[in-house]
């Protein structure tokens, strides 16, 4: 996790499903913690 701005952001594996199949990427999203 990392501090970006005023909110703590977490890096998570996010699943993506296209017509070519499913895969995952690491994306940042805000957590509940500050």
């Amino acid at each position, binding site marked *: 996790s990392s501090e970006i701005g005023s909110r703590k952001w977490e890096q998570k594996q996010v699943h*993506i499903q296209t017509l070519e199949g499913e895969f995952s990427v690491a994306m940042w*999203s805000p957590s509940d913690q500050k």
Partner: protein
Amino acid sequence: AKTKAAVSMEGFSWGNYINSNSFIAAPVTCFKHAPMGTCWGDISENVRVEVPNTDCSLPTKVFWIAGIVKLAGYNALLRYEGFENDSGLDFWCNICGSDIHPVGWCAASGKPLVPPRTIQHKYTNWKAFLVKRLTGAKTLPPDFSQKVSESMQYPFRPCMRVEVVDKRHLCRTRVAVVESVIGGRLRLVYEESEDRTDDFWCHMHSPLIHHVGWSRSIGHRFKRSDITKKQDGHFDTPPHLFAKVKEVDQSGEWFKEGMKLEAIDPLNLSTICVATIRKVLADGFLMIGIDGSEAADGSDWFCYHATSPSIFPVGFCEINMIELTPPRGYTKLPFKWFDYLRETGSIAAPVKLFNKDVPNHGFRVGMKLEAVDLMEPRLICVATVTRIIHRLLRIHFDGWEEEYDQWVDSSRESQSGSSKQKKKAKSQQYKGHKKKRKMPVGKKPVSLSSLPMTGGVRRGFSGDEELTPPPAQTAPE
């Protein structure tokens, strides 16, 4: 008298208005009282979301990933992934809308992502493209829609009884019943209104509403209801639902009757006037009269709490280069406080008794927002912050004369306010004595019946309130 009337929303779009004029909208985080105001986080440009793909000929609803190009309150200008610098298919939508999802939602819901037709053949390997584009990028939290929903739950319910300022006699309160709750705003109907049309709009955190019994507890005037028995289903609102006022110590040096000060005129929020403490009530509340225009019976005294951001020490306007409205009929102009105090044999209220807190509100001059129109409190208008004095904002309603401008507090403890009828000013009774509220651009307040948020521009909600665009913007673009 000229009043601001509802203007058709046809042809007005916040997105076009912001984009074509290079305006900046006040961010959602400036509005702590509004949905998501305290948990908007760092949602900003470049955040990716999953949205319906409207550039597609498939019979089923499909989605694609888009990035936020620009934010304007709740509205986001989105661009589908793969368009790079091409803004041809950019579109505005409300980020709190039901069709906006964090990246990952489609996979969890079994919905495939399909690239827009326009760029379908631009890449042969979309997987590699998306991995490259999205790795390390930001998206919404997985529970974003839940947070939106939670932030629009309001504790007030229809049939709750409250004490609220009497819009025809500011000096007293009356009992009213909550008729509806929309976006945290209450439509209150005075209890004796048989046809239920004698109403009053205010936000649930308004300093103008209180629990039943409040007036008696602090010594405020109260109009006893002719209705001796509560109507079926009506019940007193629990006291803890009302906004709390700051506790004050009245045992030491405190406001006294006759002390002078400067105060926002509740009958004309565009002016700050010479005023007098008329009565000191319990719990830090004060009855204040505007010098030179008070009714003989004191019926237009109004109640401000000692910590209200709408009252100021003598000299506040001069220090901040704001025009101070002298007492009506006072001819010794320019007005000099020193002379006036001597002539009236009065003293200024001590500076140390006033609220000097300045919250880090985040507003900047020029920011656009939606603000309640006190002339017609059913309406929420396109407006601009034109001046900032500490925590005080000067709000201009776009397309209307400056005479309609209003001073409002930057935080939720806004001052009371009532309508001003142009050229009739104070001689009029009030159409809507209410609290001024400000909303982020693109807010879609909803009733407790949970109407879903829809993207972009809206035309009213529940048929009662609607966004009023600037008059000049009503022609379709």
